[in-house]
């Protein structure tokens, strides 16, 4: 039976790899989920077959509760709340790894079992990463859910304090590796890791959450991987490494999209320093009514819509789909330009638009569509701000200088739906709004788009 178990593990690992491979296109992605589910089922069956398992009442009760909690989460969670759910599941995954590590540590001590050094190193890494990712993800979840302040929380010598804490935790970890019988150190070690997770995330602003989520994803994967080393289980090593590398790639993509480095995201406390920068003088701008906007859109032959998270806050996804449908019926070519950091986690905006039934071949990535703005008649910006700010290209003094942006300013006409002229989240004024070809459409995104739709049919007489 033990042999059968390890062969099933190999199949299961192959299925996990295939599962991620099939995610490369929406056409095969659902097959990928099925492969993942099968792999998971096989792994659990193999584990139960290959080992004598006792205490079934505990295990089955936990399975029952987990399933009972998991199903409603998956079906009730609105798509706007997916980032919070993701942060929560990083917390759950990391907690599971940390607790298994803790239990294993105490078990070995009780049985006076001498664990090899590398197993102890793996256990220490597993619990350290697990506990800090647990509290860190809870903090990220609180910020995304807006129960915690989104602005960075800072205090004097923050980085020095955090570094010292981490150094003490690491030092205790090393001590545990060499003297594992000092079990009294373990709770202090775990407590410091939990505390460090909190302190690591509170100084990070809401705008940086996409990077942070991806990074926490990577940590959660690595702690599962460390568990694999500790338990001598290759399947855990493979699955953990896949998750770890996925989180790493996503966080690199997010950092590039904001022209930031990891150190800058983690220790920079972005979004706080710039508030004074925005004290610009009153500059003239043009505004337009829904009726004027409708006639311009109707006369256009190509329109690029640039959605930002503001669109989702206003719940205007369905209205924007109606607008794009009715424009397309009039022969207007409509595309959506998606900046990598639009939304609150990697790829979030795509999901929000897909939920509103916008076909995915209308959604264009930044690099693929930037060349098209120069030929497009109207660029319609809704709820996006910094990702359209031309200062990122030209103004060296701007805090967002160097960040890749959507070249909205190259379109023949630019329309921006916005509540007021107030600067956005990062507090940076946007030159785009003051260009001669820019029309500001003031109002709530959902209400304004519905008004444009209402103005449209009258003109064609459909």
């Amino acid at each position, binding site marked *: 039976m033990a042999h059968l178990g390890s062969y099933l593990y190999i199949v299961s690992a192959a299925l996990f*790899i295939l599962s*991620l*491979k099939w*995610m*490369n296109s*929406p056409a095969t*992605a*659902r097959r990928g989920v099925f492969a*993942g589910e099968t*792999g998971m089922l096989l792994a*659990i069956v193999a*584990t139960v077959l290959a*080992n*004598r398992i*006792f205490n*079934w009442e505990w*295990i089955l*009760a*936990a399975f029952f*509760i*987990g399933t009972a*909690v*998991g199903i409603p989460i*998956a079906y009730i969670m609105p798509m706007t709340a997916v980032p919070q759910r*993701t942060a929560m*599941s990083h917390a*759950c*995954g990391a*907690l*599971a*790894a940390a*607790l*298994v590590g803790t*239990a294993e540590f*105490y*078990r070995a001590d*009780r049985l006076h079992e001498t664990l*090899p050094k590398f197993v102890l190193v793996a256990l220490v890494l597993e619990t350290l990463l697990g506990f800090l990712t647990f509290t860190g993800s809870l903090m990220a979840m609180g910020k995304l859910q807006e129960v915690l302040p989104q602005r960075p929380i800072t205090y004097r010598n923050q980085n020095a304090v955090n570094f010292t804490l981490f150094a003490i935790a690491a030092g205790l970890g090393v001590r545990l590796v060499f003297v594992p019988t000092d079990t009294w150190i373990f709770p202090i070690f775990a407590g410091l890791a939990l505390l460090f997770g909190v302190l690591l995330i509170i100084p990070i602003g809401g705008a940086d959450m996409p990077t942070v*989520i991806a990074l926490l*994803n990577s940590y959660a994967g690595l702690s599962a991987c460390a*568990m694999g*080393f500790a*338990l*001598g289980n*290759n*399947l855990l*090593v493979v699955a953990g*490494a*896949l998750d770890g590398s*996925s*989180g790493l790639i*996503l966080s690199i993509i997010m950092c590039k999209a904001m022209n930031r480095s990891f150190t800058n995201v983690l220790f920079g406390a972005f979004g706080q320093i710039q508030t004074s920068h925005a004290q610009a003088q009153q500059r003239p701008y043009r505004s337009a009514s829904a009726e004027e906007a409708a006639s311009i859109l109707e006369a256009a032959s190509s329109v690029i819509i640039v959605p930002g998270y503001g669109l989702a806050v206003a719940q205007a996804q369905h209205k924007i789909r109606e607008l794009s449908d009715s424009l397309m019926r009039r022969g207007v070519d409509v595309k959506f330009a998606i900046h990598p950091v639009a939304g609150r*986690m*990697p*790829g979030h905006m*795509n999901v929000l638009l897909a*939920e509103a039934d916008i076909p*995915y*071949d209308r959604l264009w*990535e930044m690099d693929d569509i930037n060349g098209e703005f120069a030929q497009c008649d109207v660029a319609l910006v809704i709820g996006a701000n910094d990702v359209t700010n031309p200062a990122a290209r030209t103004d060296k003094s701007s805090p967002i200088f160097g960040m890749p942006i959507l070249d909205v300013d190259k379109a023949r006409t630019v329309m921006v739906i916005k509540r007021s002229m107030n600067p956005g989240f990062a507090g940076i004024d946007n030159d785009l709004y003051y260009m001669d070809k820019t029309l500001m459409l003031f109002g709530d995104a959902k209400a304004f788009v519905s008004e444009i739709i209402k103005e449209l049919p009258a003109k064609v007489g459909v």
Partner: protein
Amino acid sequence: MDLSIALFVFMLATFVGLEVIRKVSPLLHTPLMSLTNAISAISVVGAILITGAQGATMLSKVLGFIAITAAVTNIVSGFLITDRMLKMFKKREEKK
């Protein structure tokens, strides 16, 4: 298990992971993250071994119980929500 074998597996899996994930369309990055999340809940295997060990102490059972609950929540909600999201991605239907 031999450390060098585990490191070998880790090295290969990391490279495979990096190559495979790099090819995932940015369109699907959110479902990708919830899928990898569900997959990394494979730590349920470790939790089952801890909880189900012969002569497990109360501490092991309680910690293992919480760990299994957390991991199963991730497995169930992770796979289901990934599928729910993927169902929304539709190609344009040819109407005209």
